């Protein structure tokens, strides 16, 4: 457990030493149209210039090339859609080939207790360039067409039922094999894609994890394409899931050698609902396992680091009846289990900016920068000090390694006027104003005002 670093003043880099990077955040024209009602989240497609915004009972998909509406998903849910996730292309997230299939797939999680699977097939079907091209043509005016007549191109294919009440979060595993959903019913469900080979939408429940004592607000899978994310822990499969809850805790789940999903760690430290979590997606120079960032109603953002064992071959310690995690073993005798437990330490608390709930944080896979927002309507961007000489002390002894230091680079107050901001995400730029299209990142915020707003972020060394 670390002690929080002293808070820094909430203005651009004013408290930072000279010669450190500074950031300027400037608004870009908002996405059109305005949704005129609370919007919950906006999720960029992993490769295509598309952004899916959940609001009311529907999802509006925006083009990142034009900042205007591309299509809409309506009619699938009886209550608000809280969350969405793009299905990774089948056959591997890194396989760009699969976008040639010209099929978009989105899953929606709703307050109506279900998750819906949707697909979008290209209407024309014969153009060889694929969806990305189509998206752009659409908005260069070549195809004419209004905003609303493309509703029909999204089809509601499958409903995943099982949760007892509101679905609050969902996420695909990096390979797309699993979908995790979570709900106010305190459970996390893991679904497996069993129709992939036939190209069907067929999903089977492989686990129901009910160890949280309150609503599960969000789930996130550890990225597995990083060199350091490949688990050295041979007793488990590669997939690692984390869940955040109303019970103020975060739990880490892994699939053991018997195919059982078990809770391997409980992260305690937040003093309010944990609204969500973000895995580190940028490879670490020190080759360590990805860290986890969590954010909460207590106004803080925390970084957690796995305490890595120096010798994986070592026999697991017998933990006997004193093991506080025995509840995680279900009905299976603990003698049949090997070393299940992981130690995660809170290795940083980001500089305190927010005065109310932190609803959303995004940790860039490209730059490693972190952006946060919440009820106070403030956007904040932070950077980790990468060179902190002399802080390597913990690295040698099998603990969680160096504590990290984070600096506030910039803030924007009233980023959606007086309204609360529900979501923030880093997002690739494809608009004409981008200097490096498809590479440069911007921020996108989604607010109670129904506005989805892109922001340009410039980092400069002073």
């Amino acid at each position, binding site marked *: 457990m670390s002690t929080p670093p002293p808070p820094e003043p909430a203005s651009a880099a004013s408290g930072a030493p000279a010669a450190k990077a500074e950031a300027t955040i400037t608004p870009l024209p908002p996405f059109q149209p305005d949704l005129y009602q609370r919007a919950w989240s906006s999720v960029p497609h992993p490769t295509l210039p598309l952004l899916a915004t959940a609001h009311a009972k529907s999802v509006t998909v925006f083009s990142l090339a034009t900042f205007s509406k591309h299509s809409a998903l309506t009619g699938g849910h009886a*209550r*608000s859609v809280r969350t969405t996730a793009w299905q990774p292309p089948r056959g591997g997230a890194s396989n760009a080939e699969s976008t040639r299939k010209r099929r978009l797939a989105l899953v929606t999680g709703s*307050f109506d207790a279900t998750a819906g699977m949707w697909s979008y097939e290209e209407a024309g079907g014969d153009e060889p360039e694929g969806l990305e091209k189509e998206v752009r043509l659409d908005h260069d005016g070549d195809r004419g067409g209004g905003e609303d007549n493309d509703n029909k191109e999204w089809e509601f294919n499958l409903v995943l039922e099982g949760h007892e009440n509101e679905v609050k979060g969902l996420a695909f595993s990096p390979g797309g094999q699993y979908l995790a959903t979570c709900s106010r019913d305190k459970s996390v469900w893991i679904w497996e894609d069993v129709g992939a080979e036939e190209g069907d939408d067929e999903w089977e429940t492989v686990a129901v994890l009910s160890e949280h004592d309150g*609503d599960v607000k969000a789930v996130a899978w550890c990225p597995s394409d990083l060199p350091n994310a490949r688990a050295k822990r041979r007793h488990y499969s590669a997939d690692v899931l984390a869940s955040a809850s109303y019970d103020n805790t975060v739990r880490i789940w892994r699939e053991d050698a018997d195919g059982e999903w078990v809770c391997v760690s409980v992260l305690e430290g937040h003093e309010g609902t944990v609204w969500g979590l973000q895995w580190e997606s940028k490879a670490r120079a020190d080759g360590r396992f990805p860290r986890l960032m969590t954010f909460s109603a207590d106004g803080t953002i925390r970084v957690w680091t796995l305490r890595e064992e120096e010798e994986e071959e070592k026999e697991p310690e017998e933990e006997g009846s004193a093991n506080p995690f025995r509840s995680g073993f279900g009905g299976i005798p603990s003698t049949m289990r090997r070393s299940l437990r992981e130690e995660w330490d809170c290795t940083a608390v980001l500089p305190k900016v927010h005065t109310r709930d932190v609803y959303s944080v995004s940790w860039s896979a490209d730059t490693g920068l972190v952006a946060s927002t919440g009820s106070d309507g403030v956007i904040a961007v932070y950077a980790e000090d990468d060179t902190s000489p002399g802080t390597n002390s913990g690295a040698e002894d099998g603990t969680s390694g160096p504590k990290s230091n984070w600096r506030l680079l910039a803030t924007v107050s009233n980023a959606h006027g007086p309204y*609360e901001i529900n979501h923030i995400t880093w997002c690739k730029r494809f608009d004409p104003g981008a200097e490096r299209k498809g590479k440069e990142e911007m921020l996108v915020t989604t607010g109670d005002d129904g506005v989805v707003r892109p922001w340009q972020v410039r980092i400069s060394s002073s």
Partner: protein
Amino acid sequence: MERDLENANPTILSVSQLPSRSRKGTAVRHGPDAKCDSIVYPKHSWPYGSSSSSDEEDDDGEEPMDEQDIYDLISTISDPEHPHTLGQLSVVRLPDIHLSPSPAELTGPDSLVTVLVELTPTINHCSLATVIGLAVRCRLEQTLPPNYRVDVRMKVGSHAQDDQVNKQLGDKERVAAALENDTLQRMVDKMLETCV
């Protein structure tokens, strides 16, 4: 559903005993003390170009509020089980309403104001506390300008499950979902019928 009332004999204040400013009965001030408001508090306008239209509901909410205004907005909410208002039952009390900072000290229309309302349910184990809290939060969010952040809590010591109820009422996502629940929405609507 229990058919018995949770509290069969609540103390009831008569309307004339309730705190009021002038018995005009509305929250909006048009008196001489409000005539400078349009100068002191510029109309809300979006600073970023293209989405020029500000929200309609903003327009009439620019006058500085005080605790009495908040009281007037919520004291007329009906109790879910008694034919009286929350003001008459002293569930809502003027001294338990706190604005911070005072809206008169705001630096701009987007500056946040926190409204803290502490409720005193009529008895210790009132299972309807959550519904009452929901109605109060709902009423304030519907009527106050968007720069107000509403915190509704049970007054310390007044309710057996303070923490649970407070946490639920403070959870935006739960509140949003609750208001999509037909039964709850109907209850809240009924409670708000008596509001002007």
